[in-house]
């Protein structure tokens, strides 16, 4: 029968108060999202599959109803403990508009997004950037420098991606830890720059 998975290699969280934050790692198909997450994650990359119904059915079930289309969309994720009580989750999410409901769910409460791009098909990242902007998430763009992809200077890439001057751009190898970590630093700095300066009223001080 279908038993519980072996718990030997599962990375449990410590049993005390934790703050869990999340960053969305997105981009077109095969751009290196899972590689990026695998490079940084302290646990083996995990995977979920969501079934999405495309027709509207507010209170119906999904079983064998004709006329509804369902798609399965896979997301990978990993996590990174940054302090005793602070854990960052990285969610790899496909950047297609048709996955909007999943996107909204994952983006809710996210700190920001890392948009991965490939110089062989920069235009494939446009839809992703639109989606991220629609969700109101701060983001940085990271070009994954595949060995077989042409290399371009940052200014050229910025121009081709039509990036807002305030949106950080960097180039990295998704297999290489320090570059991936730098990308998350760039994103966090970008998020910090957008947060209001005077926002330190402790909740217990409020009426």
């Amino acid at each position, binding site marked *: 029968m279908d038993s519980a998975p072996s718990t*030997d290699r599962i990375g449990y969280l410590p049993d005390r108060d934790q703050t869990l934050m*999340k960053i969305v790692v997105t981009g077109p198909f095969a751009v290196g999202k899972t590689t990026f997450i695998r490079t940084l994650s302290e646990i083996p990359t995990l995977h*979920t599959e969501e079934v999405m119904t495309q027709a509207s059915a507010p209170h119906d079930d999904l079983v064998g109803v004709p006329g509804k289309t369902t798609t399965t969309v896979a997301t990978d*994720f990993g996590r990174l403990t*940054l302090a005793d009580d*602070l854990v960052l989750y990285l969610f790899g999410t496909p950047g297609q508009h048709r996955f909007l409901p999943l996107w909204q769910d994952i983006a809710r*409460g996210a700190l920001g997004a890392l948009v991965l791009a490939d110089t062989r098909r920069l235009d494939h990242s446009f839809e992703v950037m639109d989606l991220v902007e629609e969700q109101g998430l701060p983001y940085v763009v990271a070009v994954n420098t595949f060995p077989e992809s042409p290399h371009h200077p940052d200014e050229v890439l910025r121009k081709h991606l039509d990036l807002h001057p305030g949106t950080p751009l960097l180039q990295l190898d998704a297999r290489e830890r320090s570059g991936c970590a730098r990308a998350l630093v760039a994103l966090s700095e970008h998020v910090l720059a957008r947060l209001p300066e005077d926002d330190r009223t402790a909740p217990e001080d409020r009426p």
Partner: protein
Amino acid sequence: MKPPPGRRLVPAYLVTGGRAAPADRRAAGYDRLAILTRSDSTPSDRFGQEHHRLWRLLRPGPLTLVECAAHLRLPVSAAVFLAADLVESGHLHIRPPVPPAQRIDRTLVERLLVGLRALH
């Protein structure tokens, strides 16, 4: 220990008893990063096998809802139902990803940056 399970035997839609996620009000507020911990009482047999699998998974320690879903090979929406049932019956506890007294503010992001800069 046992080898990893193959393709699941119970289809995801049966796990939820045919309920669709957005329709169930209990599912509201179940963030995929909500932290699940187990209480000491064993769920009775009125709960299905999938509920028991979730409860057994959490024996060694807490996990987020999305991690439970991944380990049980369930969609997050199905894991939400199992968790909601077991929270309601008092067999699981659930905590939000960010403690209620905490907020995503500059202090928190600055702490995140310290941790990230230490990585490379």
